[in-house]
């Protein structure tokens, strides 16, 4: 058995240990009845109350707490999902570009200033690296107990986690915003099981997760067990493209099955339209891979913002006796994204992005957001003619992608990557210790983030663009992320803002010219100067406080320059924390610096079209007006 090492926190080359490979986010059900309820019997939630012990730094943590015979009598409790800071353990903190240890600890990323600078102890012995020890018991639900493999899924843990089951080490994960999965089968007991997670606030991931946001930690998204049947759809790739005539659907499907030895069966693939009329039906032997290639459907109903029509794919796995053992539903649309004459097209038409950048936010719970929050955001999108979202600057809750498919929201699906603290110094570009840069030691960590983003979300019709990350400068490592997408997906385009920061890489990191906050006149200069690529404002109209004046100057570019394809307003919702006023007790919203958190960027987190409590700012009517001029 592998021994967990604290030094992994210091090593950018160790970012996943014993994690299962990322795969598509399809949901699977045991039967049609199961499917009809929408609640899979093959999943068991581990959300709720966990036992919890907080330690201010690694040296104070309860070593060995994962052992069943450890004395947990002094443990507190915490809710999963919840940030440790919202729960009152860690101090709330907001900072934009500089690292959260600014002015307190001197740190340079491992290897950034020399091969010999390995950063030993930087985080594993970091005095600011607080630790949450999470613990709970569970007994497998009967339906799961009958399955072949039991996997645990962590949808989001910030920023590094070690996992044990029944005292045995299972694995390690970084990448706070991607799902981490581990196979628990070898360690399970029939009776009660003890699952233990040790969450560290910091690891080398801290250097590449420097997003402009409140800095949280802990298990902040759901945790669940899933039971995989003897034949299980491990991964699926659905492609609903269009032929050149733009009316014929070009459908391909690739299933990767996880088949137990000596288990045979069949896989039935069917497609129905939104009214339930069958389009396609085929049954194949259940092999490790099942493929359907370029199945053509004439006159398909296209998917687009104004008419987000989805077809229903259904994969039914049956055993030799014909008994259904797994059903995988997935809704997908037919649409075609392409670059033609330097203009990005959807279904042959020029794309105009009436977009917003959206951090996941809830004033009461931070980045722990509810389905209700997401529904309300989509309602706001619809009411204000917002047709696109950039998942700034990390993968969002999985449900959001399904909801955007249904709502017809064009997604720029961004990786969890931001390292502006390593190259933006008080406004100046100074990349002397930039990571990932071209450092080989950091490459796999960031390519893995690209891989996770792709593998999990690849079937979402709404995603038109992958985005490599935000404000991380440019180098070979980001070029390698782009290469990953180019190797795996020819149905979408790739975006990266850093294209304008280091022109040496401009042909290797973004299909479009992307800038943030360029004044309209500067954009016009680009557009009138023999531009190489179409232009997208990945961030514009900085809506901090009372702002959003002058939008007409951007709007005018749309009609004037076909290669200007709109952009994403910064941003959708203020980040501020709802709390009680220490003087009056009234409910108030607080921002950076209000928690004695220093160094801070104070109110700079309040740039939304919505206030943090999801009420609209007055400027929203202006967005509705201008975005309403180019509904597409």
């Amino acid at each position, binding site marked *: 058995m592998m021994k967990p090492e604290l030094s992994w926190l210091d090593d950018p080359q160790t970012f996943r240990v014993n994690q299962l490979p990322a795969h598509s986010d399809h949901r699977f059900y045991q039967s049609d009845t199961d499917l009809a309820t929408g609640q899979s019997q093959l999943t068991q939630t581990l959300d709720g109350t966990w036992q919890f012990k907080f330690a201010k730094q690694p040296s104070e943590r309860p070593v060995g707490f994962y052992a069943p015979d450890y004395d947990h009598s002094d443990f507190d409790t915490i809710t999963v999902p919840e940030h440790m800071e919202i729960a009152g353990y860690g101090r709330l903190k907001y900072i934009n570009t500089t690292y959260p240890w600014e002015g307190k600890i001197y740190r340079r990323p491992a290897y950034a200033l020399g091969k010999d600078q390995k950063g030993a102890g930087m985080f594993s012995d970091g005095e600011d690296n607080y630790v949450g020890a999470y613990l709970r018991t569970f007994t497998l639900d009967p339906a799961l107990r009958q399955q072949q493999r039991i996997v645990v899924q962590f949808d989001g843990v910030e920023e590094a986690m070690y996992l044990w089951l029944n005292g045995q080490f299972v694995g390690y994960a970084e990448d706070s915003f991607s799902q981490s999965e581990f196979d628990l089968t070898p360690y399970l007991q029939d009776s009660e099981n003890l699952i233990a997670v040790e969450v560290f606030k910091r690891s080398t991931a801290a250097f590449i997760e420097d997003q402009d946001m409140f800095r949280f930690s802990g298990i902040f998204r759901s945790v669940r067990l899933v039971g995989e049947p003897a034949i299980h759809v491990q991964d699926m790739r659905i492609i609903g493209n269009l032929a050149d005539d733009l009316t014929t659907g070009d459908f391909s499907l690739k299933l990767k099955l996880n088949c137990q030895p000596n288990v045979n069966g069949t896989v039935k693939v069917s497609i129905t339209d939104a009214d339930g009329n069958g389009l396609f039906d085929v049954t194949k032997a259940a092999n490790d891979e099942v493929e359907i290639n370029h199945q053509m459907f004439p006159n398909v109903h296209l998917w687009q913002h104004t008419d987000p029509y989805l077809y229903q794919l259904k994969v039914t796995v049956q055993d030799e006796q014909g008994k259904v053992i797994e059903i995988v539903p997935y809704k997908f649309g037919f649409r075609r994204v392409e670059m033609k004459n330097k203009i990005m097209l959807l279904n042959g038409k020029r794309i105009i992005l009436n977009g917003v950048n959206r951090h996941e936010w809830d004033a009461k719970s931070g980045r722990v957001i509810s389905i209700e929050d997401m529904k309300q955001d989509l309602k706001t999108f619809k009411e204000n003619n917002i047709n696109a979202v950039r998942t700034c600057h990390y993968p969002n809750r999985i449900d959001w992608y399904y909801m955007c498919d249904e709502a017809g929201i064009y997604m720029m699906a961004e990786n969890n990557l931001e390292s502006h603290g390593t190259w933006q110094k008080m*406004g100046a570009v100074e990349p002397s210790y930039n990571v990932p840069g071209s450092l080989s030691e950091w490459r796999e960590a960031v390519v893995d983030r690209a891989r996770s983003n792709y593998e999990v979300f690849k079937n979402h019709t709404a995603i038109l663009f992958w985005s490599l990350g935000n404000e991380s400068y440019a180098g070979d490592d980001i070029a390698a992320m782009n290469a990953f997408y180019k190797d795996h997906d020819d149905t979408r385009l790739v975006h990266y803002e850093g294209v304008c920061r280091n022109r040496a890489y401009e042909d290797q990191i973004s299909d479009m010219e992307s800038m943030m*906050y360029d*004044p*309209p006149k500067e954009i016009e200069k680009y557009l009138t100067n023999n531009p190489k690529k179409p232009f997208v404002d990945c961030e*514009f*109209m*900085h*809506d*901090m*406080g*009372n*702002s*959003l*004046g*002058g*939008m*007409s*100057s951007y709007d005018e570019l749309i009609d004037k320059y076909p290669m200007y394809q709109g952009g994403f307003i910064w941003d959708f919702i*203020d980040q*501020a924390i709802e709390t009680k*006023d220490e*003087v*009056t007790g*009234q409910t*108030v*919203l*607080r*921002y950076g610096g*209000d928690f004695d958190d220093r160094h801070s960027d104070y*109110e*700079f*987190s*309040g*740039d939304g079209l919505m*206030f*943090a409590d999801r*009420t609209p*700012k*007055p*400027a929203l*009517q*202006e*967005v*509705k*007006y*201008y975005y309403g001029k180019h509904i597409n």
Partner: protein
Amino acid sequence: MANTSTKQVQIIYGDATLGLRGEGFGYIFSYERGGMESLVQHGKEWLYRTPKPTFWRATTDNDRGNGFSVKSAQWLGTDMFLKCTGAAVAVNDQPIDLPISPENNQYSDHEFADHVTITFTYETLTVPVTTVTVAYTVNGNGDIKVGVAYHGKTGLPELPAFGLRFIMPTVAKGFNYDGLSGETYPDRMAGGEKGHYTVDGLPVTKYLVPQECGMHMQTAQATVIRNRTLDNTDHANHDFNLTFKQNGQPFAFSCLPYTAEELENATHIEELPTPRRTVFAIFGAVRGVGGIDSWGADVEQQYHVSAEEDHSFSFVIQGV
């Protein structure tokens, strides 16, 4: 103003003030206080302190980011400490000697006119100095035509705003107006839809850091509704109104419980004092809010307010 009224306004040539009365109204203009001191309609007082020209807006995040407040800081001092340097009176458009004692001994207790104009001159606390005049013309219906004129001066920094600020004695119940929906600024009003709007209370837009807010551009008419006075004998709580109407061009206004300075000093909305007054400011020039970024980008040039050029505006406070 065209004299369409057959009613006459009575003039009280006081020693410290000029009183103008009529049926259902009584106005007092103070030479000492440098402006209109009392505006009573139907027995209800509408002024807490004399209205003064206003030049400042509570710094927006964009203003802070691009250094506008620093560049234009002189206007903050002027907004707070503006001094009145003169008053002049005209009766039926004929200027008269300033009717203070003993000059006013020539008048009687029954002096009437079609209309009377009193003009106050204010001097800014800027380098260089310039002046602003505010002229009130009152007729027998109690209509007050107000003309506000700023005299541009080379070398002065751009204006955050230019208007006339009324501070009313109690918090209004609300207001209504004919203009654009929502909060609008010169560079952010395309989305405002024309209509008649009613606003309950005096909402302060809850920006994380309190700042300039609540502007309504392109307004034809605004009515403030109150139901309380400071008069210890007045126990009524029925609604009473005061209406501001455009005179030629539409105006911009905001109706808040705070002055720009009060907003300026708070870092959170909960730090603002308990609302006690109504601050109704009516503007002839408003600077845009900008939006390109919040760390340096300027407001687009056409939405600046030059202090080197003249600005004037006019409106009518409706009589009884």
